[in-house]
């Protein structure tokens, strides 16, 4: 599925990723943990193609296709989805309109028919109910005036509706109370499947109690400095990142 090799990336003239390598096979969930400033969000933006995140060396491929050569919307149509750490407010665009526009754009890019209005609404009702989102909320401008927890739930709703193949969750647990965390985690776990892969970026181990990873990587100083099983997350929770920061 995803293969990242020796990735070096520069933001504002400063090298943030310094030779990052990572491989996530289909069907697996990998977690990336690391201290603030390690490059976690930079990795998510490089993989999704945000302006200002310049790759100077290395590669990132999805099923063998060079991701870095594709525009952000083309990557999305190929199945790359980023759940933002800070989801944007989109004044004037109802959530339903936004999601439907996105879904149909992806379908057009893949040469598929647009989804009909009744089919779309049925899907939206179903997924919103599963995430305990009031359907009326989807008629409001996306994320405008929503609480932190509501915004994160809207991210997972979009994910469920767009049905991506490769999912990046950037600090999805931040700003969530324990009940919201459980709902969001259930939503994410419902998307686990043999043909999907996930990259869960988090500062704390807490989220990984709910979304159980197959592998855990430690990102420090722009590189993966340690990898292991789920037990590595617990180890980090006890011992902190200090020794890895020194190693980096």
């Amino acid at each position: 599925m995803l293969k990242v090799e020796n990735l070096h990336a520069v933001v504002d003239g400063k090298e943030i990723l310094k030779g990052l390598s990572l491989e996530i096979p289909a069907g697996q969930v990998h977690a990336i943990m690391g201290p603030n400033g390690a490059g976690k969000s930079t990795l998510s933006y490089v993989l999704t193609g945000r302006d200002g995140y310049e790759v100077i060396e290395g590669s990132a491929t999805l099923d063998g296709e060079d991701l870095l050569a594709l525009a952000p919307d083309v990557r999305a149509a190929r199945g790359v989805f980023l759940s933002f750490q800070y989801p944007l407010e989109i004044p004037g665009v109802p959530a339903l309109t936004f999601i439907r526009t996105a879904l149909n754009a992806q379908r057009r890019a893949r040469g598929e028919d647009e989804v009909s209005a009744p089919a779309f609404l049925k899907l939206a009702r179903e997924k919103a109910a599963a995430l305990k989102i009031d359907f009326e909320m989807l008629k409001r401008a996306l994320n405008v005036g929503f609480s932190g927890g509501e915004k994160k739930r809207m991210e997972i709703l979009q994910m469920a509706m767009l049905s991506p193949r490769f999912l990046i969750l950037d600090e999805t647990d931040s700003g969530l109370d324990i009940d919201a965390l459980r709902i969001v985690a259930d939503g994410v776990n419902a998307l686990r499947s043999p043909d999907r892969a996930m990259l869960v970026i988090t500062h704390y181990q807490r989220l990984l109690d709910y979304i159980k990873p197959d592998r855990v990587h430690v990102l420090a100083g722009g590189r993966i400095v340690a990898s292991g099983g789920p037990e590595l997350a617990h180890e980090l929770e006890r011992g902190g990142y200090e020794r890895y920061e020194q190693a980096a």
Partner: protein
Amino acid sequence: MSIATAIRDRDVAELPGRRDEDWRWTDLRGLIRKLPPPSEPFTAGVGDGPFDALAAERRVVVNGRGAEPIEVPRDASSIVAVRFVSRGAGVHIARLNIFLGANARLVLLESYESNGASLSEAALNITLGAGAVVERVVLAQDHAEAVSVSQADVTLASRATFGQTTVASGARRQRLETRVLHPGGQASLRLDGVYLLADKRHSDQTTVVTHAGTDGVTAQLTKGVVRDQARGVFQGRIVVEEGADRTDARMGHHALILSDRAEVDAKPELEIFADEVACAHGNTVGALDEDALFYARQRGMPEDDARALLTEAFIGEVVDRIDHAGAREVVRAWVAERLRG
């Protein structure tokens, strides 16, 4: 200083220009070296207007001719489409008087349609009786070489309601000016505007609201999108006279500049001489939010689609405030067509 006196005296020095404070960003005096000849009567057909299908009554004023007064008697109700059509490259003015009796209702659907380098002025006087309700929607779709000025003087009475949305795509010089005498007394005013400008077009939306009595309400929202070398002008003045206590007036102007060479000049002014008033204004001019743009693209929208969606939503906030559903949809379609290019 006006186009009318310039025509009367055949003297370009009478045109308004930069020395008139209110006209400094729409300098006709500096632009026009020689007055064009007076427009000839135009007798051929002028096609359909943008609001024809919605109106109970249709008026067409061509090259300044045919502006018969509109009167809506007490308690009556009407929907009137008025087209100010300019054909050719002459100069002309039109005057239109509109009267509403007490509790009368009017939806005024107005359009400006020029097809060449004309110089035109339309002067409207709109007088509302007590409790009368007017919604005025103006679609100014002028020719790129036209100089087009519309000036409306509106006089409200107590409990009257006046709602207005001016929508403009600019011209060589285009000005939509509205002056409202607001007597207070629970009269309510909404003054909205939209300008969508491309190429070298210019559009000026100028409003002056004078609150002369207590308990008046004014809500104003103007939004613009300018690209290429276009220039948008917004001047909004709200005067709250001495004794006009408990006035509630809010003015917002927000513009998106989509190219380095486009320009927006804005001058919001509040002059308050009364007590206990609630007055506020907000003014922002900037680019489309790059973070929101990336967010939309990450969800799969191609860049042009994402820009169009966000820009339409930006303007949509003003369009949504139009009460008359049919006019709202005409304006929405007109905006979408221009933003999607």
